[in-house]
């Protein structure tokens, strides 16, 4: 699944992806533009919750990567077919 495809399948996914990528880039002008796009499209409360989600998943990766935790068995089982279809395991 491409980023574009994923974004298209979720309401206002394009502006949310724009915000995520702008925040990750750290470029102030891009963040400012993306911020206004989300606020104008989804509203201020949605913008704050979108920012909070970005913060959460920017933080939790430090735990996963730093401690070296494995995927849970039930998640591995649930995603087995999908991982095979996309050949994700070849990246191990």
């Amino acid at each position, binding site marked *: 699944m491409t980023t574009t495809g994923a974004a298209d399948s979720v309401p206002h996914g394009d502006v949310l992806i724009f915000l*995520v990528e702008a925040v990750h880039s750290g470029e102030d002008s891009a963040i400012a533009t993306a911020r206004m796009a989300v606020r104008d499209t989804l509203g201020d409360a949605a913008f704050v919750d979108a*920012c909070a989600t970005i913060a959460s*998943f920017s933080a939790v990766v430090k735990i996963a990567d730093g401690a070296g*935790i494995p995927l849970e068995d039930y998640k591995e089982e649930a995603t087995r077919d999908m991982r095979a279809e996309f050949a994700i395991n070849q990246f191990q």
Partner: protein
Amino acid sequence: MDINVAGETLPMRDSLAREIEVAWQRMAAPGTWWTGAERLAIAAEARRAGDCTLCQSRKAALSPYTVDGDHDSTDDLPDVVVEAIHRLVTDAGRITEKWVLSLAPALDETAYVEIIGVIALLTGLDKLDQALGLALRALPEATASEPNRQRPKGAKRNLAWVSTLAPEDVGPEDPNPYPLHGDKNIHRGLSLVPQEVINFFDLDVELYLKDHEIRDFEHDFRAISHAQIELIAGRTSALNGCYY
């Protein structure tokens, strides 16, 4: 409650606003292995890591393990601690078990896990402010007291690269990190220092969702939908090279 961002008012859930303040207080308070002043020194070093020349060279290299040198730091912390902080901040996705194990004995795994906790907490707080358009907060004043340096007796190295505390091994003397937020592997990652699990996930469940809310697709708990939350989560994780 409302927050002010560059002269404009934005609504923030009271529960999120509360946990942000709690998280800052916990950042400055004595941990289990580091004093409040040391935890703030770790946080300050974490904020500097992005400008480190060595880290930038390593980030650009095919493998970070082929580039030697000294980190740009203030010498407030031992070299091994600076190395741990900078790697966690700038290139966590390429951390290996061998690298984690190489930190010992200069940096015990208990102290390393608390560093992960401090950095995760700081990352959540700073990234939220950055996304909202707020200036990064000045670090607070440290709370003076000594860490209790209590390692859970039941912790074992059988799940991750660091020892973890399984739910069935939590002792009566340990803070129990699991009843409130769950016991998935991501919770267990910090469980060698149980208080760090509590510190981080008390904030994280307000940034993201509580464990029981994640798969409750009958209800929306935020001003954005489950699908929108997971789209943001997936793209953020991909950009950060997180495949957990």
